[in-house]
Each structure stands twice: as structure tokens, then as C-alpha cells.
């Protein structure tokens, strides 16, 4: 019986349990002639939960454990004695035999596998029967235990509430644990990297030229300063020069000047910018903006070194991409400034724009700064645009018409294609990822605390 049929069976039993317990509770409340503590539905849910949860938990654990048990019993069988002692051959034969037994494979490559099939079938059937039986026993035991507790004064309502609380807690823990897991994996690989390359060279070196060292030769150098500089130039300087004024001014227009009808149209349209896939921005940058900027630089500014993959093209397009972030945070902060503040200024005879410049924007500034920091953290982690438009050369240049590279671009470069996962080159990607993670994390923490303090001031 496959897993999901068993699952359906348990679910069906839970429904039956729910109906039965609800009926029992209704009946009891009639007999005892007083209002029971919990509604009949709560008793029903209580029984259904007791019936389904332990059984399904066991089923989950069992399906994780049983393949190991099956393999053990197969290895203990007489047919397993002819297996090679260890190594790839042994594993291959075992997994082939397993697949043959399941019917997912029609014929074996290794003839030895055929011999193991009966043992596999036998073990499979044995453990499957145990699993199904135990699951059903658990379901019935749980259901019966809960059903016997159905009484008018039994507080099923509170117990069901507690299960809800646990379910919510687990849901949030999964998200947190995933983050912890990501950090841990980054951290371990990074430590391995720093066993090969010194941390000082990585953080302060200015020469970035990782090579594939197939035979233990020269692995190149890993000075990441050019990457950090390229990231800052594109994400924190050029993109912000575009996004801060445009985002802020559009937020001011939308909150202060726009007619409500205009606002209901323009605000969603502006937010569509945030929904455009970044790869689309990427080819817009690479195919349209970058050549235009290069031609402009060469023909009108006389910058002959202008590259067709320029920092400016990537930065400008990235700036456009994050306009909605800046503008929606600025919009919220401006809207959060109390109307009394605006009225106070207008009543002093200030004009609309004076009020905005001298009162509203200063009052909303913490929120706006928070939005900008969030936008920076988003920009420096952005990948597709820079991969397509910024180039690969690790240049240390302040000339925006030249090609620079960023942390994210290099991570993509280091990890794409067939790579060995124990060379300095691939491990460097994890070190870069960790740096990126730490920087964006700090930016987010600072931004959120700034925004939070601002909110407290006005609530």
C-alpha cells in the first residue's frame, strides 16, 4: 500500500472520528442537560487530531527509517555474502536490486543484483506490513484515547487551541531554521576556504584572478577588493544616484500633489516595476542601455575606453529597478507624518512645497533613510542585471564607463559549469556569499531599527 493511500485512509478515519466525537458530545450535552465546556466541534477536532497526528508522525519517521532497515536485513541474508566488500560496486548493486524489487527498473546491469531481489522483496513486504500495522494501531489507539475523554466538562477547546499554537510555532521555526542552515553551510565552506587562502589577502588584496588548478598548481589570487568596489560602485553609488531622487520625488508627488484618481493609477503602475523579472532588466541593460551609453561616451564625451559592458549601464538599470522600493518606503513615511504637522506649517503661511521641504521630508527622513538602506541591500545582492550588463573584469576604476565586476557576478562565475567542490576557486564563492550575506544582514538590521524608531515617534 503506497504512502499516500495510507495517508488518505488516516485522513478518512480522522473525519469519521470527528463526526463520531461530535455526535457523542452532542448526545452527552443533551443527557447531562447543562452547557458543556466546549462546542461539539471542538471535541470532534480533538479526537481527529489525536487520531491523525501520532499516526502520521510515525508514518513520516517510518518512511525515513525503513529503507535503512530493509537494507540491513538484505545484507544479513545469505544472498548478500557474494557482494564485494565495499566501494562503488557494492552500492550500485544494492540500489539496483532495490529498484528491481520495486519494479522501477526492468533489468539489471549487474547480474549479482538479480540474486538479491527476493531478499529485497521479502524485507520490503515485512517492514511495510509492520509500518502499516503500527500506523493503524496508533491511529486507533489515539482516536480511542481521545474519544473516551469526551465529557461535558472536558476542555477540548483549550487543547485544540494549544495544537493550533504549536502548529504556528513550528511553521515559523521552519523558516528560522532554514536561515540558520544556510548560514551554517556558508560558514563551513568559508572556513575551508580560509584554510587555503589567508583572510587578510581575501579581504584586503587587490588582485582577483582565480584559476582552475587541476593538478595542484597555481590557484591564482583571491584579493576581493575589486569585487567589493565594483559592487559598491554599481549598487550603492550609481543605482542610488538614480533611485533616490526619482523614488523620493515620485513619492512626494504621489502623496502630496497627485489627485486621488491619478494616485490610484500611478502607484500600482510604479509598483509593477518591482514585479518585472530581473532577467528582463538584465537584457534591457545589456542590449539597449549599455550600447547607448557606450556610443554616447565615445561620440560625445570622447571617452575612448568606454566598454560595452559598463558599470553605468548596470547601475542605471538597477537604479530604475529599485525605484519602487525607495518610493514605497518614502510614500509610507510621508503618509505617516501626522496631518497636524502639515496643517501647522500651512497655517504659518508656508506654501505647499515649503511645507514638504521644511517639515514633511525632515519628519519622514528616518523612514526614507530606512527605505534607502533596504534598497541598497537589495541592490548589492542583485545578480541578473550585473551578470548580463556589468562584465567580468575585476577592475579597480572609478570610471563608470569601464567594465567592473561584482560579488554576485563572481559567485555565478565561480560556480557555473563543471566544478570540483574542493578547489579554492569554488570555495571562494562561499566566502563571497558570506560577506554579501553579512553586509546585507547588517544593512537590513540598521534599516529596520531606524524605521522602527521612526514609527514609535508618531504612534
Amino acid at each position, binding site marked *: 500500500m503506497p504512502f499516500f493511500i495510507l495517508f488518505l485512509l488516516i485522513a478518512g478515519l480522522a473525519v469519521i472520528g470527528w463526526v463520531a466525537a461530535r455526535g457523542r458530545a452532542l448526545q452527552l450535552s443533551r443527557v447531562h442537560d447543562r452547557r458543556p465546556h466546549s462546542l461539539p466541534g471542538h471535541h470532534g477536532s480533538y479526537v481527529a487530531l489525536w487520531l491523525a497526528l501520532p499516526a502520521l508522525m510515525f508514518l513520516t519517521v517510518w518512511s525515513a527509517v525503513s529503507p535503512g532497515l530493509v537494507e540491513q536485513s538484505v545484507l544479513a541474508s545469505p544472498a548478500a555474502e557474494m557482494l564485494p566488500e565495499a566501494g562503488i560496486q557494492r552500492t550500485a548493486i544494492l540500489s539496483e536490486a532495490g529498484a528491481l524489487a520495486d519494479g522501477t527498473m526492468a533489468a539489471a546491469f549487474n547480474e549479482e543484483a538479480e540474486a538479491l531481489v527476493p531478499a529485497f522483496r521479502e524485507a520490503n513486504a515485512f517492514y511495510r506490513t509492520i509500518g502499516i500495522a503500527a500506523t493503524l494501531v496508533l491511529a486507533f489507539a489515539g482516536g480511542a484515547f481521545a474519544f473516551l475523554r469526551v465529557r461535558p466538562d472536558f476542555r477540548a477547546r483549550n487543547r485544540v487551541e494549544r495544537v493550533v499554537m504549536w502548529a504556528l510555532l513550528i511553521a515559523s521555526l521552519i523558516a528560522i531554521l532554514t536561515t540558520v542552515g544556510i548560514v551554517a553551510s556558508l560558514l563551513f565552506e568559508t572556513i575551508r576556504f580560509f584554510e587555503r587562502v589567508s583572510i587578510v589577502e581575501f579581504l584586503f588584496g587587490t588582485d582577483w584572478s582565480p584559476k582552475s588548478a587541476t593538478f595542484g598548481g597555481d590557484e591564482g589570487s583571491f584579493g576581493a577588493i575589486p569585487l567589493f568596489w565594483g559592487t559598491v560602485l554599481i549598487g550603492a553609488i550609481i543605482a542610488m544616484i538614480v533611485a533616490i531622487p526619482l523614488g523620493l520625488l515620485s513619492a512626494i508627488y504621489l502623496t502630496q500633489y497627485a489627485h486621488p484618481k491619478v494616485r490610484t493609477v500611478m502607484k500600482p503602475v510604479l509598483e509593477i516595476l518591482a514585479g518585472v523579472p530581473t532577467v528582463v532588466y538584465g537584457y534591457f541593460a545589456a542590449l539597449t542601455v549599455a550600447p547607448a551609453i557606450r556610443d554616447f561616451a565615445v561620440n560625445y564625451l570622447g571617452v575612448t575606453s568606454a566598454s560595452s559592458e559598463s558599470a553605468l549601464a548596470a547601475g542605471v538599470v538597477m537604479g530604475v529597478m529599485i525605484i519602487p522600493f525607495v518610493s514605497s518606503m518614502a510614500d509610507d513615511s510621508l503618509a505617516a507624518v501626522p496631518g497636524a504637522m502639515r496643517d501647522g506649517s500651512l497655517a504659518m503661511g508656508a506654501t505647499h512645497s515649503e511645507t514638504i521641504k521644511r517639515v514633511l521630508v525632515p*519628519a519622514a527622513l528616518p523612514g526614507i533613510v530606512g527605505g534607502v538602506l533596504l534598497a541598497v541591500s537589495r541592490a548589492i545582492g542583485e545578480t541578473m542585471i550585473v551578470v548580463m550588463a556589468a562584465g567580468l573584469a575585476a577592475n579597480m576604476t572609478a570610471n563608470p564607463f569601464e567594465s567592473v565586476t561584482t560579488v554576485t557576478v563572481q559567485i555565478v562565475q565561480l560556480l557555473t559549469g563543471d566544478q570540483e567542490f574542493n578547489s579554492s576557486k569554488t570555495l571562494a564563492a562561499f566566502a563571497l556569499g558570506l560577506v554579501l550575506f553579512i553586509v546585507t544582514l547588517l544593512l537590513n538590521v540598521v534599516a529596520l531599527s531606524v524605521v522602527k524608531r521612526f514609527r514609535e515617534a508618531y504612534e
Partner: protein
Amino acid sequence: MTQTALTQIAEKRNAVEVDTPKMTARNVDVFYGAAQAIDDVSIDIGMENVTAFIGPSGCGKSTFLRCLNRMNDTIPIARVTGDIRLDGKDVYDSSMDVVQLRARVGMVFQKPNPFPKSIFENVAYGARIHGLASSKAEMDEIVERSLKRAGLWDEVKDRLPDSGTALSGGQQQRLCIARAIAVDPEVILMDEPCSALDPIATAKIEELIHELRGRYAIVIVTHNMQQAARVSQRTAFFHLGTLVEYGDTSELFTNPHEERTKDYITGRYG
């Protein structure tokens, strides 16, 4: 006495005119969308007086007050008709610049609303906007004079760079009065200036209104009848968007002419 004589006396007592009018309003209507908030109100605001507007909540007294410095302009759906004049000049006329009008007719709000700036900058705000000071020394003088007039100087003179929002509620409200005074207005409108304050802070504001009287024409909206009796010389009673009765404060409170006024001041409703 004949019926006509009685009516004549009634008309005289309910006269909207004062001897030295600073502002005059005639047949003012205010609409919010389709709803009428003010219905045909005519009233004079005297130069030498503190004028109080009283009435139950939603009677239109604040709405009418906000017509006097055109603050209703900031509400898109509000529409004001009728004739409101400041020193004989129509404030709703296209030749009247709203920036200048508001410099001459200052306003203090219900809730203290200092700007999130220093105490000094709060008071200097209007002077900066209207370009009243040409030097740092002049600005210092304006700030000091305004704070002194608002009775706040002694409390804040050592902490002028501190944020205005760090002051207590009563101090914030006096800061807002100082801010309004700093541009040297002729009329000061106060919209329930004490409703968010404790009794001690309220007493200080009332004392301040006494001191400011004569220098500025003051209009105060209040839902507190004792306050109106304490601080004002003239009182206007509004009800359901109309001006029911307007007269000397002492007269209106001791010998109200209209039945509705009498019911209100004796606490029958409101």
C-alpha cells in the same frame, strides 16, 4: 410693549456687529461635498476682544474658524461661499494671497503640533518663510521676543537647541503660540487649544490669552463654557451649523436671549 418693539430689541441684542471689527463675515455657507456644515453665518470679530465660539460637537464652530484663514482650502471637498473680510479686504478674493493671509491670521491647533525640529527652529520657522529676519541677531531677537510673549522663555531659554517635541504638552502648546506670534499676526485663531492639556497647563494658556488680548484679535473655539466665560469678552453660540446667538460674554451667559442658548449653557444638551 408691542411685538415689533420686542423683535427690535431681539435684533439689537443679536446684532453681529462690533465697534472696531477686524474681520467681518457675511452670509457664509460651507459645504463638505453635498453636506452643508455652515449655514448662513454672519459675524464680526472685534480687534480689542477675545471672541469665543461655543457649541456642541459638530456644530460647525471649528469649520467656521478655519474659513477665517482659509485652512478649509486644504480639504479638497470643502466649498466656502459668502463674504469674509480682513480689514475690509475679501480674503477669498483672487487678489488675496493665501500665504500673506495666513501670516496675518495665525492659528493654534487643538493638539500641540510642534515640528520635529529644535525649539529655536520651531519659533523661527514662520520668520524664515516670510523673510522677516535679515541677520542671525535679528532672528535671535524674534525668537526671544516671541517666546517671552508666549510665557515660555524662562522655561526653555537654556535648551533652545533641544527638540520641540521633547517639551510637555502644555509647553508644546505655548511653543505653538510662540510660533504663531513670531510672524507678528493681527489675528490669532485658536481651535480648542486646551482640550489636550491638563488643568494647570490650561490655566497657563488662559493667562497667556489674557496677556495677548489687545495686541491681537483672538478667536478661540472651545467646548468648555467656563473657559469661554473666563477668557472672552464676546461669545458666539453655534448650533447645527448656524450662529444662534452672539453677544457680550457676561450677557450671553447670565441672560441668554435664545431658548437654545439657554438650554445649552444650563447643560440641557451638548
